[in-house]
């Protein structure tokens, strides 16, 4: 589903991704772990098309199609979803207005009918009940004044409503209390499907106990340094990243 080859990305003058190669199959949950400042969020931005994060070399393909020339909205319509590490507050835009605009824009882009309001309302109601997002939160402007955990739940609510093909979760677990972590993980697990893939960026083994990954990738200094199964996460928990940083220096 996702094929990244020898990807180099610079932000401003600085090269952050330095030849990153990663492949994620349909139906797979891939975990990415790595030290702070390695470029994990940068990778998520490049995949979703953020301005200022341009690839200088290499390619990113979604189901065989090169997506690097598409704008963020086009990529979203193709099924890419990023749950932000730091969701943005938008005080002027009502949450419901936003949700409806997003769902309908994607439907339009795919040539589907827009949702009628009752259908839309029902979907939001069902998904928010499942994820413990209160009606009161839905009435507020988008993410405005939400706590860290509330913002993360709102990200997962959006994912549940938009039903992406490739979801990237950037530290969705950070800021969540133990109960919320379980609710969010259940939300992700409910969406697991043969035609859908997840890239889960996290610092903690705990999340991976709830969302069992198929593959684990160690990212350091702008590259994937090692890939393996779930046992790799346990090893990292024990040894930290010293091996990977040393390896680079040598």
């Amino acid at each position, binding site marked *: 589903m996702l094929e990244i080859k020898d990807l180099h990305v610079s932000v401003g003058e600085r090269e952050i991704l330095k030849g990153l190669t990663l492949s994620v199959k349909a139906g797979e949950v891939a975990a990415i772990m790595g030290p702070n400042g390695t470029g994990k969020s940068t990778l998520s931005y490049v995949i979703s098309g953020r301005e200022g994060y341009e690839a200088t070399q290499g390619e990113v393909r979604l189901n065989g199609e090169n997506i690097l020339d598409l704008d*963020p*909205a086009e990529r979203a319509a193709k099924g890419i979803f990023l749950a932000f590490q730091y969701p*943005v507050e938008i005080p*002027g835009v009502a949450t419901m207005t936003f949700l409806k605009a997003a769902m309908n824009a994607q439907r339009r882009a795919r040539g589907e009918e827009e949702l009628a309001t009752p259908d839309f309302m029902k979907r939001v109601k069902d998904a928010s009940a499942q994820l413990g997002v209160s009606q009161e939160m839905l009435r507020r402007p988008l993410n405005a004044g939400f706590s860290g955990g509330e913002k993360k739940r709102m990200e997962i609510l959006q994912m549940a409503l938009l039903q992406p093909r490739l979801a990237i979760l950037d530290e969705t677990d950070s800021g969540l209390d133990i109960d919320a972590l379980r609710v969010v993980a259940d939300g992700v697990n409910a969406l697991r499907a043969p035609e859908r893939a997840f890239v889960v960026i996290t610092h903690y083994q705990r999340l991976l106990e709830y969302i069992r990954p198929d593959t684990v990738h160690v990212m350091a200094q702008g590259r994937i340094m090692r890939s393996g199964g779930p046992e790799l996460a346990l090893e990292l928990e024990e040894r930290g990243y010293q091996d990977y940083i040393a390896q680079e220096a040598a």
Partner: protein
Amino acid sequence: MVKLASEAEAAFSSFYEEMKTKGATGLRSAAWDAFSSKGLPNRRVESWHYTDIKAAMSKPAPLAIGRAGVETARTHDSIRLVVLDGIFRPDLSNLSALPEGVKVQSVRDALAQGTPGVMALIASADVQTDDALLSLNAALMQDGVILRVGGGVTVEQPIELASITSSDEAQSSFTRSLVIMGKDARATVIETAGALSAASIQDNQALIVRLAQGASLNLFSHATGQSEALVRVMSLVAHLDERATLSAYSLIEGAGLLRRQIFARLDGERARVAFNGATLARGRSHADTTLIVDHAKPNGESRERFRNILDDTSVGVFQGKIIVRPGAQKTDGVMQSKTVLISDSATMNNKPELEIFADDVQCGHGATCGRLDKDQLFYLTARGIPRKEAESLLIEGFAIEAFDGLENEALRNFVSERVTKWMSGRTA
């Protein structure tokens, strides 16, 4: 005597000769002297530094004359009073719908009668301003509406003062209307400044608001225009007694040159004013909001919140001054102006000022000017919302912030619709 040299001032002088014959000669001549001693302000006059009104008014067209048979579409569910091309039109107004305790008189009739008390209200000299355009308005006023809401009266339905120009010919109009509210009276007034044609029109209109003890007025002002050739000066002069409240919201859709100037005097303890609004400007339009809030008595409160959205090569101006007089202790004033430039070629001029002569006060101001937030735009587009639509959502949200406390739901919806419509008219 100062010589009036320019073409404009010669034209105004001939208007004055004509209007002098319509009564209120004392009021008019004092105003004319005040105007003609200075003439039209050039950019060296501080309060007009960013708006070159002298250039814009260099060639005034003939005085407006009322016309018959003009259809004006209704936009609000209101009791509407229409001033068309400078003349109050009872035939186009719903006078019969006015509730008990509310009285309407034409300014023209009042000026002809010249009752001293009424002349004093019209002149409203206790709100001190030496603004030349306001003096010119008083010297040349043709007509307008005097709306009186009796003491203790609460008017539920909004009353609309619609001042509309319709002429296809170039014209100059000068109108002055009054809203006079008795003790503890409550009302909502919608002030509409519209232009039905694209002619070269110079429109100088003033609204005088006088709120007695405990009176409360919600004022919603909406200005639109059709043409780059429109030059409009709208002055709001407000005088508040003890515990009176003026809660004002404005939506300015820039067209040509528009200057909205507000002179408010809080002349009783615990008086409160709020001036909020959004300005939308595109093309080559120039939109100026200038306000002076004068706290003369203790425990007053003022709130100003303005949002400007500037596209193309439009120019915005915000000048806000809060004055706190000696003895106006415990004054609480907050003034804020925020601007989003949606084009590289648009310009905003911000000048917030405080003049504080009392020691125990809380006053603050802030002005920001920038582009749309990139992080917010990315967030919205990453959810599949196309860039243009994402920009519109953000801009609408930004504009709507200025109307946060507006209670009248119909007016809130009206604002949303207008902003959405304006956004859909974006070219680039």
